[in-house]
Structure formats: C-alpha cells, structure tokens
C-alpha cells in the first residue's frame, strides 16, 4: 500500500531548491506533493512524482544525494477533526509519525496526507480499520 517518495539533500545555499526543481521539470516528471525539512545547515526536499525512476536518474546524474523512502498516502475527510481521528488511531496502535505533509485534492471532499511512519504495513491496516482510505501509487495521480 506504500508509495515511493524521493528525498533530496539540499545544501543550505540559495538557488539549490530552484535547481533541483528545474532538473525534475526538465526530466518531464510531474510533482504531486512536496515538502521541505530545513535546518540551519541543510534542507531535505521530499517529493512524490509521477515517475520516480526518471526523476531519480535525472537528480543522480546532476550529482544530488537522493534516497527513496516508502511512505503511505491517506485520504482524510475534509472536515474539522478528520486528521485527528486518523492520527489518534495510529497513536493508539503505538505507531510513531516521523513526519507528514498534506496536499488538497481536486475533490473538495477529502485531503491527502503523506505519512512517514515506523511501520507502513501496520499503519495502513490500522488506518483502514479506522475507516481511513489508503491511496495507492496509481491512484494518487487520479485524485
């Protein structure tokens, strides 16, 4: 049920994000979701793209340090308390969330949350049982 996220090491220097975005753009991949974790020294760009392999190749050829991480994408009801219900289920099951980021889908009924958790398989099962829909890699671009 997990989908692939690409993480890119960005040195803390102006223009590095723009450069990485340009490289992915030129490789013809479409960005579905993105977040940046930043520290005073460096940043980590995390993206979900239409063609992971192609984007990876382009970034690696350009000399970037990259990694691929399986994450899960959960559809959350677009209403107050929607996210809280899903996260409560994970917390009860003892699953930690390392980081998360969200994007709004074209539909107004729900939002998609990307979750990096300690155990994808179990998290998907717990969320499913709590009535949260888990999105597959193919589905994410249909949203």
């Amino acid at each position, binding site marked *: 049920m997990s989908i692939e996220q690409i993480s890119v090491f960005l040195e803390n220097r102006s223009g590095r994000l723009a450069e990485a975005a340009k490289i992915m753009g030129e490789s013809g991949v479409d960005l579905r979701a993105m977040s940046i974790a930043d520290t005073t*020294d460096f940043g*980590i760009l995390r993206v979900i793209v239409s063609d992971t392999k192609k984007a990876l190749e382009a970034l690696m050829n350009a000399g970037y340090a*990259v990694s691929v991480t399986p994450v899960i994408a959960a559809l959350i009801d677009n209403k107050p308390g929607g996210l809280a219900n899903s996260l409560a289920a994970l917390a009860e099951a003892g699953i930690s969330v390392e980081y998360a980021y969200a994007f709004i889908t074209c539909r107004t009924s729900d939002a998609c949350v990307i979750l990096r958790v300690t155990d994808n398989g179990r998290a998907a099962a717990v969320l499913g049982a709590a009535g949260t829909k888990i999105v597959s890699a193919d589905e994410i671009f249909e949203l």
Partner: protein
Amino acid sequence: MNYYQEEVECAPRGAIRGIQSERLSAVIRRVYDSVAPYRKKMDEKGVKPEDIKSADDLHKLPFTTKDDLKDAYPYGFLAVPLKDAVRIQSTSGTTGKRVVAFFTRHDLDIWEDCCARAVVAAGGTDEDVVQVSYGYGLFTGGPGLNGGSHRVGSLTLPMSSGNTERQLQFMCDLSATILCCTPSYAAFLAETIVAQGLRDQIKLKAGIFGAEAWSEEMRRDIEKTIGIKAYDIYGLTEISGPGVSFECSEQTGMHINEDHFIAEIIDPATGEVLPYGSKGEIVFTCITKDAFPLIRYRTRDICVLSAEPCSCGRTLAKMSRLMGRSDDMLIIRGVNVFPSQIEAALMSRGLSSNYQIIVDRVNHTDTFEVQVEMTPEMFSDTVSGVSAHEDELTAAMRSMLGISPKVRLVSPKSITRSEGKAVRVIDKRKI
C-alpha cells in the same frame, strides 16, 4: 627594569655565545652516546661529537623533525634513564602526529625559570596575583605559566581554560593582576568583562598571551578593552612549552632564552642557515635539557630573528611575531590541527577524503568548520538521520584533534578541485 635572572638576560652577546658553545658541545657528546637516532643521523652525515667545538659548528649537525620524533615514539629520543624522568607533556592531537616530551626535575626547573622570566618581564612580582587560564594537563600552557608564577612568588590561580563565569568571579574576588591564556580567550574574556560591566572591578594590569598567532591589531584591541598591557609568549612542547621566548615592555618581538635554546633561521626548502633579519623557519637546539634535548628541531614556524639592542636592557636575541608555517599545520584556538588528521577521521569511517577546512576569526575567536561532501550512504529522508551523521563526524574529529569542529555536510562533488586535487584549507584569518 624587571628581570628575573639579570646576569643572563642582560649578559654581553659574547658571553652568551660562550655559554652556548660550551653547552652545545657537551650536549652533543651526551646525546651521541645516549640517543640512537642522533648517533645514526650524525654518523650518516659524517659528523662526530668532537667536530662540535662551538656554537659556530651547529650548522654541521643534522636536523630533527616531528616525523623523527613520531617514528621514535615514545622513548626513542629519551636521553636519560627512564627512572630520571619525572613528567611528560604532549602535543595536541591524539593520533597521527603525537609527540611525548619528557622532563627530569632539572628540566622542569629550567622551564619554570624561562616562564618566570616572562612573568617578570610582564611586570610580575611576589605581590602579584597570576590567573593561569591556559589548559592544564598534557598541554604545556597551564603547567608552564603555573611554574613560572610560582618561581616569581606570585599568588597563582590555576584556573585552567573554560568556565568563563568562574574565571571572572575569581578574577574579581581575588584581584588577579596578570592573566595568562590564549589571545583569543583573552579577547573573549575582555569582551565579557565589558559586557557584564565588570571593568571597574578587575585589577588586571598585564596579560601573557600565547600558543597561537595573533595580530598587532588584536593586541591593541585587548589592551584598550580592559586597560592592560598584553605580552606575547612563544614555545612548543617539543622544546619545553611556553617560555622558549617572551616579550618585554618594548613589545617588538620575543627574547629567546638563549642560555637554554640556540635559535637559527633557515630556508625551509634547502635547510641553509640564513643571516639575522631574514625571514625563514626557526630551528631550536636545546643545550641544557637532560631528558629531551632536541637538536636543530624544525619548528615549521616562520619568523625573523634580530639581535639589535633592546630598550628593555636585555641582550637576548628576539624573534618576531610568527608569520606563518612551512607545513600545513593549522593552529586553531591554540590547538595544532593537521589536515591529515581530518582525512584520517573520515577514512576511518569509510568516507572518502573529500573535505574542506574553513578557518576564520570572528570577534577574535577562531571558527573551525569542516565541510564534508554528502554521500548516498549518509543520506536519509529524515533530519535526525542526517544530523546523527554530522554529530558522529564531529565526535570522530573531536577525539582525533582535541578540538571540536563544526561539521557541515555539503552537496556531493561540490568542493572545489583544482588540477584534480581539492583545496583542503581556506584560512580567512588575517594575522
């Protein structure tokens, strides 16, 4: 005038030369018999102890280098039975370039005398309170000035380095009059004194600051900030620690304790001895030490020697402020750092040696950054994962160097390479 041993410090040049000649031939005779590496080097060069009749013959002797000491670690250059040695001191850095120097009771006496001359030249008497804020332990700074201050009869505060709050409390409560530490720590203390409004509570009149290169501008800045006179002092563990040379009130160079150490200036490339006034590498020969008398030791420090008469009345020759190094050693916050040690720390963690050292001086304090290129193995999607690698590298380098760098991970292949070879060190300090 303030002298500790006037009969030596102000002796006629000819008399100093006479003492040097006599002591040199005696020490050479002794080390030829007792130190195998010296005997071997002298034999290879075809020099016999009887060829060294006076200080004029010094140039006939082979040089001793840090590598020689490293190869003979730990006892190879020990010139007395081990039972006669009572102390060791060691250079900073824990691997690669370690040097252990031995002292007999007599050697400690000499060292303390040398430091006492520095304390007295800075105006120290038995009425003074000397705050020693150099590190104690294997580092020679603390023990050296501590001994010198004792000799003079000053009340000695063995503070060691760090813990600035406590430093300032003792400085105020016990009315310290002379501060001994590295120039960068002195500058930091001076700023803190002003920032905390303690300027009126301190009784400092002088500072003895060494173990790292500093500029005239920095000196004037420290002097002005806290209203003291700042004196330079020079030394190295191999020769005995601080007090090999020291500054007088004229502040135009450091008088070399020539009754114990003979100084020469050489061309670092050819080894040729250069006349006084020439810029070159300073080389020392210990002529009075029992345990570890180094002969023509290559310091790699670049400076100029002068024997012009000094207004302070001392006749001892002076060496200028340090003008650089003839090898790649950096002195950062008083600690000796070789780029090769950084390389060793990286290699020991299975990393390639793509790194760059950036040293700068901000508000009189050295900044020390090591940039390391990110590798796929070190990279992960979480900040904590990447930070853990930075912390690991910092710890590995700290244990190798004895000083903590700021490790900064940079993009792969981003460190400038010229002619296929990376530029390892960028030293932005203006000294």
